[in-house]
């Protein structure tokens, strides 16, 4: 594995857990909906981590990365990991409609993951609306944005109002400051953004509807949110609904993922305890000779399989 990925991974464990959940889910969806000839569209930046996974895990060949930064674009062209990736320069709100206008992309499912820089704002919400109403049948859309509380108002009293400015009528009138605190804002934004996505699709009577599939609040040095779902064609809708309704579906996460940065020694020690049917306790961790917070232990136990293999970093 390339060194930048290891470095990238090792300092951002929650991010890689999130990616793992998303691609596991996408794989199950692609299989059940029997998707073929899918196009992957995203912001590969210069790392293309998600593109690597789209190719390896989902077997997608044709991929499009959009990059707004001119320097980033040059570096992306230089760094792209497969020849079947095309890098487009410009903002996604300009490039996506152009992609949609090309006949070759119109009848194929898209998997679009807009892994944004920065907080949710009016512009991103507008782009979400556009994509929900214009992606071809059987597309899957995902959005990632930051949920740091200060980006939604410098003072706590401003935040509920700001959230409702951005997301509109789906935001309950009694949204509180508490809902928008550092700890709660990622989950609040995740739920309300999902509500927004479902509403756009339902209010515009898009055939097939929207299947809420990914709702992942995670902590990656700042609070982050990934949300998304399926825009099934009428034929594939029941199969996709069934997959997401299964007990084993992991895409809807009810507790913020906060995989702690850990040393190799700690990871190896804890991992040796797993899998374990019961709940790994803090007492046990202390017995093993170190310490972690309860929710960190829960995150680790639930998601250790998605953590990168740390051994490779030292290799």
């Amino acid at each position, binding site marked *: 594995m390339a060194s930048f990925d290891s470095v990238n991974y090792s300092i951002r464990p929650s991010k890689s857990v999130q990616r793992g959940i998303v691609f596991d889910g996408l794989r199950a969806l692609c299989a059940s909906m029997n998707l073929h000839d899918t196009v992957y569209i995203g912001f590969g930046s210069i790392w293309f981590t998600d593109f690597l996974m789209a190719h390896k895990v989902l077997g997608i060949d044709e991929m499009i990365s959009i990059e707004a930064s001119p320097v980033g674009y040059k570096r992306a062209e230089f760094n792209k990991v497969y020849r079947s990736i095309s890098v487009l320069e410009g903002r996604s709100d300009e490039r996506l409609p152009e992609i949609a206008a090309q006949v070759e992309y119109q009848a194929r499912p898209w998997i679009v993951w807009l892994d944004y820089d920065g907080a949710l704002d009016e512009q991103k919400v507008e782009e979400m609306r556009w994509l929900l109403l214009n992606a071809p049948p059987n597309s899957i859309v995902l959005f990632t944005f930051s949920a740091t509380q200060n980006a*939604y*108002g410098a*003072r706590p009293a401003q935040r509920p*109002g700001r959230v409702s400015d951005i997301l509109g*009528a*789906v935001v309950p009138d009694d949204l509180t400051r508490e809902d928008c605190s550092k700890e709660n804002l990622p989950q609040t934004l995740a739920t309300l953004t999902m509500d*927004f996505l*479902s509403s756009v699709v*339902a*209010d515009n009577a898009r055939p097939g509807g929207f299947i809420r599939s990914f709702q992942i609040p995670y902590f990656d040095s700042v609070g982050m949110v990934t949300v998304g779902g399926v825009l099934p064609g009428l034929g594939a809708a029941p199969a996709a609904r069934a997959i997401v309704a299964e007990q084993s579906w992991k895409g809807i996460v009810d507790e913020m993922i906060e995989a702690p940065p850990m040393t190799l020694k700690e990871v190896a020690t804890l991992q040796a305890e797993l899998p374990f049917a019961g709940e790994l306790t803090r007492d046990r961790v202390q017995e093993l000779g170190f310490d972690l917070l309860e929710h960190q232990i829960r995150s680790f136990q639930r998601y250790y399989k998605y953590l990168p293999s740390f051994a490779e970093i030292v290799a």
Partner: protein
Amino acid sequence: MIPVEKSKARANPTKAFFVRMITRDITLEDCIFDLIDNSVDGAWERAGGRPMSLNNDTDLSAYKISIEIDQNRFLIKDNCGGISLDDAVNYAFTFGRRDDADTENFSIGVYGIGMKRAVFKLGSSIDITSTYVGDDGLSSFKVPVNVSDWLEAGNSSWDFDIDEADDLDEPGVCIEVQDLSEATAQSFASPRFVQDLRRAIARDYALHLHRGLVIDVQGKPIKGWSIEMRQGGDFSPMRESFKEKIDGEDVFIELLAGMEALPPDDSDPEGDWDENQNQSGWYVVCNGRIVLAADKTSLTGWGTDNWPQWHPQYSGFMGIIIFSSRRADLLPLTTTKRSVDATSPLYRRYRSHMREPSKTWIAYTNARKQSEREQVAEKESKTKAVPIFEVSARSEVVLPQVSAKKRTPEANVSYSVPKPKLLRLATALGNIRMTYKDVGLKSFEYAYDDLVGEE
């Protein structure tokens, strides 16, 4: 010669036509409101059934209406007394009100169409269960309606079967609709629809919720809108009561009007003016239910008879006219209960009463525009919001005299900038939700201090 068997043109409606017609011009939300109205009528009747004036202190806290909505099912359940078997046999399922029907006391339902129209609009597999206190204790029945079977059964029989049923927890009605229509299922899949429904219930049943009625949607009770007017200093709202006799029956009218919120400092329609959020305008209430809210159209007089059209400059004004009568059919309701019947003589008569407070307010906002900002702000700051129930009787709105200002010539600055940049500047100035106007003023002051300095 016309043969005997051809001497009549057939004019019976078909069921299918009838269902199409009655469900056509009503929104899903108003259908749900029709069902809530039936429950509310039950509660009001049981609680004593008197005219719902603002002073009436009927306690509704024993009554609860629960609504559950999802993509596959609609459910409304109340403990408001239920429908008796006799009423079900004779009246409750009849299309339209029968001439021999008792008039319910101070009810909102009037046309005898609400429940049928609502369930037909929602879906095609319907179960209506009622538990009531009969002569020998609790009795129950249910009316299952399978719309396609009913349509197929032909046009000769319009009746529905009544079956045995288990008792509900308390006397009341439970209506469950499945096989939702496509449009209904789509709306129910929209969290926006559900939020907006909550908002509309909070507003339109505010007077019932204020009296303790519980309405919950998806298990969460709705907090009623507390309707308030501002008074204090030189400001007093008006409140007046009237009584009319129509067909030998009393109709009670109450009129309130005044300042609901501080008026905007400027009325630039291109600013961050949000028409939807604005509560200003006229409200019409019939037997306790708000049927027209925040109206700014000719229905409540704006733009008619020399009365100017609504303008954002007038926001801050609120007027409420409340009609109540034992006989709901005397009130200016439309069948959808989402508007007033502007042809009603009663309503037209009272529209002239509504005109006066509107005019007083218009004059105030005109004078205010020409006056010293600080002087107005000082006066307006003395007001505080009070619930409308506490407003005292007075036949006119009282508003302060404001004097025109000594004028320094003013320059109006207006320019457009990209919105993301404006939001970033607002954030840097300390408040991402600052009005555009304030961002402009603050930037001007900032530049002025920096480049010009002391005056």
